[in-house]
Every structure is written in structure tokens, then in C-alpha cells.
């Protein structure tokens, strides 16, 4: 196998003049969410688990409003911690229901437990309502203004607490506590890793098909806390959150040419990924955030390059007259799956992270584009082009291909942090209208994400630190 490394001109990341950046105001950086010990029933070992996948979608989960010890107004919600407790339960209910995983019943059709009952459920009441599982919790305001949210999961049949956890959050981060609680319940009942407390970067689209305005935007995994990051005077495409959420890689036409920028969320400043006159596209992070992959066209020929995230020398990973583009690291950082038309049409290839040992893995009918390695490491999602465009998965050797969606043009899959759900964007025939959708690995549970305007290029970040 020919392995050719081409050293490019060394270039430090160079700041771009602020006036030419198309950027809106920077958004506040993440606040810390702190775990806190909370009181609960510690009697005896847990007797039962509920990890049987065939059963868990049918579990009836009751999620009454979270209680409070003393109703106090908070900056998050002037109606007070009592009303906020109801909102928290609503967010958890929506999370569990929208992902097709459970059949939760929310606070608006359930009795509200008193504060004292959070740690000592009235099991008789809940079993009488047919609930198998019960989520209770509380919201209290501390004197320093921060909120404490406690989250408890009970097995109604066993009359036992399964798990509990508490968090201290800034009032503006109360939804994060609801997502943490959703993750706790999801993980305890399925044995899977969490994914609700995460964010999504994407491209917000407005305007007619031939003059589409495309802006960089971010939102929570459930569509809340939505923000536009660019103003729309320049086309923005293909964002990727850094693993620590401090930066976003994306493509912008802000200087008239397609180029990859590194946008620093805390400072609101952005830099070119590499100082070079050639167009750069398709940015990706390594799992540890230390490297950036990008694709660059030189005299019309596109190849894949790697550069340290802090700037420095780029290394050329592919060297082929075909279009080599994209790239997605395996979770351990040792391999990269990418797309190339070197065989005559778009197909998926795997190489070592240093560019060696490039091998085609897709040999089923149709084309393989935009491959993305699952965070679990066992699957690769991609756009399968066989007439229509659909999202499909295969194992890392290219076997076991399964098509998950049935749209006319479903494109660019991105994995949930736990590797169980895939988001993608769907474009409508003729109108060009686009939206973000998600589907689970069974292909059975598909839904559209709520976004304020049309949306494309979703990029799901990891569980928030």
C-alpha cells in the first residue's frame, strides 16, 4: 500500500478581521452542572432490573410534577419553584415520549405528590393507575440563587427505588437538570448510555430555493435553547461541535470562497482551519478534539488532510485523482471512514488514522456517501444513494447493511452520543424545503425535530461535560 505524506506549508491559525465574519453576538459559555448527594431509600440491594429490550417500550412510566419544599420565585421561572417542578416533569415526559422509547404519562394528567412523598411514594396510588415505573423529584431554590433538582426512579411493582441523583444548576440551566434526569431514567431502564443532555449544531435555512439563506445555529437535543450564530450574509454549511463544546468547525463563504473556520464559542472569534488559498470543505474533529480533518481541492482535485486543532502543519492523508472527502474517526481514534469516487462512484473506505491501508468497505448496490462512525464503534451510518437518498447503517466491515429511512432525499446522518439514534436532514422534492429528522436503529421510530425555520446538516455533539 502506497503511503504518501505530503507536508504542506506550515501555517499558524490566522485571525480573520472581525468585520468580515458574518458573526452574531457570542453565546454564553456552559455553566457547570454539579452532582449532589440527595436523600433516598437505601434499604437493601436492588432486586429487579428492567433491561429486556423487548419489554421496555411498553413500560408505563408515570411522571408527576416535581415537588418543592417552599415555593420561591427564581430567575428561571417567576411563578416559582412549584411551577418549575411541573415544567421539569413535562420536559422529561417529552424526552421519553418523543424518542419512541417509552409510553410516559406526564404531570398534566397525574396527581401531584407532596414534597415529603418524593422519597416515600404512595405506591398504592400509582399501581392503581397501572403505572409500572414512577419518576418523582423536587426543585428547591438555594439561598445563593442556584437550584437543586432531585430525581428518583421507582419500580411500582417491586415498591423499590431503582436509582436517584441530584444536581445543582444555575437557574438558566434548569432544562439541563431535566435532561440529566431523563438520561438517568433512560440509562437505568435500558442499560444504554445517556444522550439527552447534549446539543446539536445545524444549518438554519430560509428563502427561496435559488437564493437560500443558510445560517449556523445551535440548539439542545430537544430543540430548546435555540440560537443563530451567524447573520446570514454569507452561506454557512456543515458544522461540527468540538468534543468539549468550546468550538464549532463549519464552512463559510464569507470571503467568497468555501473555507473551513474554527469558531470559538466563548470568545466569539473565528480562525481559518488552514491558511491556504485553496478551498477547504468537510470539517471533522478527532474524538479527543486534538486534530481536525478537512478536505481541500488543489487544482480541482479534493483530498483529505489532518491538522492539529491548535494549528500547525497539515498532513495529506489521501492522494488520489478521485474525490476523497469527509472522514469520520472510529471512537478510539485509530481509524477513519471516508468517501471516495476513485472506483468511479461514491463509495465508503476505511483507512488507518495516518492514511495507511485504505480499503473500500461498501460493496452493496448503490452508492455510499457521508459515512459517520457510531460513538459505540460497532456501526457506520451513511447516505445510501440508490435512486433516492436514504440513511442506512452497516457494520464496520461493510456487512449487515440496513436502510432506515424512506424519504426522497435523506442525507448526512449524525449519531446521538449513545449510538442508538441517528439524525439526518430530509429535503422535499421540488420545493427544496429541508428539515431535521431522527430515527432509531430499528427504523421504526422516526420523527421531525422542531426548528424555528427549515434546517439541514445536523451535527450531534457528545454528552455535555
Amino acid at each position: 500500500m502506497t503511503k504518501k505524506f505530503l507536508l504542506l506549508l506550515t501555517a499558524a491559525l490566522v485571525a480573520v478581521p472581525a468585520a468580515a465574519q458574518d458573526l452574531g453576538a457570542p453565546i454564553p459559555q456552559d455553566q457547570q452542572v454539579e452532582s449532589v448527594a440527595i436523600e433516598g431509600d437505601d434499604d437493601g440491594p436492588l432486586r429487579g432490573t428492567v433491561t429486556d429490550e423487548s419489554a421496555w417500550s411498553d413500560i408505563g412510566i408515570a411522571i408527576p410534577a416535581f415537588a418543592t419544599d417552599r415555593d420561591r420565585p427564581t430567575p428561571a421561572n417567576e411563578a416559582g419553584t412549584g411551577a418549575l417542578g411541573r415544567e421539569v416533569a413535562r420536559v422529561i415526559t417529552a424526552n421519553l415520549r418523543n424518542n419512541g422509547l417509552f409510553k410516559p404519562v406526564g404531570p398534566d394528567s397525574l396527581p401531584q405528590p407532596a414534597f415529603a412523598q418524593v422519597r416515600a411514594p404512595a405506591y398504592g396510588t400509582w399501581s392503581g393507575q397501572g403505572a409500572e415505573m414512577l419518576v418523582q423529584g423536587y426543585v428547591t431554590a438555594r439561598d445563593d440563587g442556584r437550584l437543586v433538582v432531585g430525581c428518583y426512579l421507582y419500580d411500582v411493582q417491586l415498591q423499590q427505588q431503582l436509582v436517584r441523583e441530584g444536581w445543582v444548576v444555575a437557574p438558566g440551566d434548569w432544562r439541563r437538570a431535566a435532561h440529566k434526569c431523563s438520561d438517568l431514567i433512560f440509562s437505568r431502564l435500558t442499560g444504554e448510555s445517556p444522550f439527552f443532555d447534549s446539543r446539536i449544531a445545524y444549518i438554519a435555512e430560509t428563502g427561496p430555493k435559488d437564493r437560500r439563506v443558510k445560517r449556523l445555529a445551535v440548539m439542545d437535543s430537544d430543540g430548546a435553547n435555540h440560537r443563530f450564530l451567524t447573520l446570514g450574509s454569507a452561506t454557512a454549511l456543515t458544522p461540527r461541535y468540538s468534543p468539549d463544546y468550546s468550538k464549532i468547525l463549519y464552512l463559510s463563504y464569507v470571503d467568497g470562497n468555501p473555507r473551513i473556520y474554527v469558531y470559538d464559542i466563548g470568545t466569539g472569534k473565528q480562525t481559518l482551519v488552514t491558511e491556504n488559498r485553496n478551498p477547504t470543505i468537510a470539517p471533522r474533529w478527532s474524538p479527543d478534539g486534538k486534530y481536525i480533518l478537512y478536505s481541500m481541492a488543489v487544482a480541482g482535485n479534493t483530498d483529505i488532510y489532518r491538522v492539529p486543532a491548535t494549528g500547525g502543519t497539515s498532513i495529506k492523508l489521501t492522494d488520489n485523482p478521485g474525490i476523497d472527502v469527509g472522514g469520520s474517526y472510529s471512537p478510539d481514534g485509530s481509524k477513519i471512514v471516508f468517501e471516495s469516487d476513485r472506483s468511479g462512484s461514491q463509495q465508503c473506505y476505511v483507512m488507518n488514522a495516518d492514511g495507511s491501508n485504505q480499503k473500500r468497505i461498501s460493496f452493496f448496490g448503490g452508492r455510499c456517501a457521508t459515512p459517520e462512525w457510531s460513538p459505540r464503534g460497532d456501526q457506520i451510518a451513511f447516505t445510501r444513494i440508490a435512486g433516492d437518498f436514504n440513511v442506512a447503517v452497516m457494520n464496520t466491515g461493510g456487512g449487515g447493511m440496513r436502510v432506515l429511512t424512506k424519504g426522497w432525499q435523506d442525507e448526512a446522518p449524525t449519531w446521538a452520543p449513545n449510538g442508538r439514534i441517528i439524525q439526518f436532514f430530509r429535503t422535499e422534492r421540488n420545493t427544496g424545503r429541508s428539515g431535521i429528522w431522527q430515527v432509531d436503529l430499528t427504523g421504526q421510530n422516526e420523527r421531525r425535530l422542531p426548528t424555528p425555520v427549515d434546517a439541514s446538516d445536523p451535527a450531534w455533539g457528545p454528552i455535555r461535560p
Partner: protein
Amino acid sequence: MNTKIATILLLSSAMGLAACSKKAPADIPPPPVDTTRPTTQPTPQVQPTGPAVGTQAHFAQAVGSSTTIYFETDRYNVDTQDAAALQAQAQYFARFPQVTFTIEGHADERGTREYNLALGERRANAAKAYLVSLGVDANRISVVSYGKERPVALASNESAWAQNRRAASVIIN
């Protein structure tokens, strides 16, 4: 010479600012002619009231539909019809050596976004290489790919996609 280069740079950066509202050339009627501005070079072939040299309208008037060449699905080769169009362009650029231009490469919507950006780049460079082989100075030609982001035909059918798989030469002025 230096002054001329500086002027071109200034003008092209002004173009850059206006680029967002600029539509694909095949899609727009010729802009209203500014008769108050004298042409910088006398051109007997063009009527005095016609578009000024160095404008897209002037270029389009001279070469007709040959401002744009079209490609088969996923292809970027210059076929016979494309070659004829590029020869007409090359003659124009030989006659007006002060004119600089950008080749915009495009793809139809039936490709993935990033691949189409690379494909548009390939198409624009194929057109550039052909023009250079005909004697046009490579330094006069800029290249930019828009992938599938700027269609001129808006339907989702074969006819529209054929119109969108294109490399369009656009005068920088």
C-alpha cells in the same frame, strides 16, 4: 501595470461584497446599460449604446449561451459541445485581454452536499484547464464551487438537473 492590478483587486473585492445577491448569469436579463459611462476601450464590433466591455452583459452579447457549459451526472469532462463554447469564450478573452473572470462550478441537487462542493470545484477547474490550453492566461481566471447551493432551474426533474450541472464564466468587474 501596478495601478491596473490594484484597480482589479479593488473592483473584485467590491464584487465580493455584492456577491450574495448576484444570481447565476444564465438566469438574469441583461442589466440596464449605463450610457453615461464611456467604454474604456473603443470596440468597433459593439454598438456604442450596447453593454460596456468588461461587463457580463457584454460578454453574454458576444458569446451568447456559450458563457456556460453543462455536464453529465457526476461527470466533469469537457465534451464537444463544451469545447465549442469554451473556444468562443477564449476568443472573447483574447480580444479583451484586460478582462478577468471567475468560473463558477455547480452540481445538481441529486448529490450529497460535500461531494457536490468537490464536484463543482472539479468542473470549474476542467473548464479553466481547457481555456488555459487555448491560450487564456491562468492568472485571469478565478474558480469557485457552489456545489448544489445555487441552482438556476428549480424543479426536481432531469431537465432542471441538466441545467444545474454547469460551469458558468462570470466577468469580474
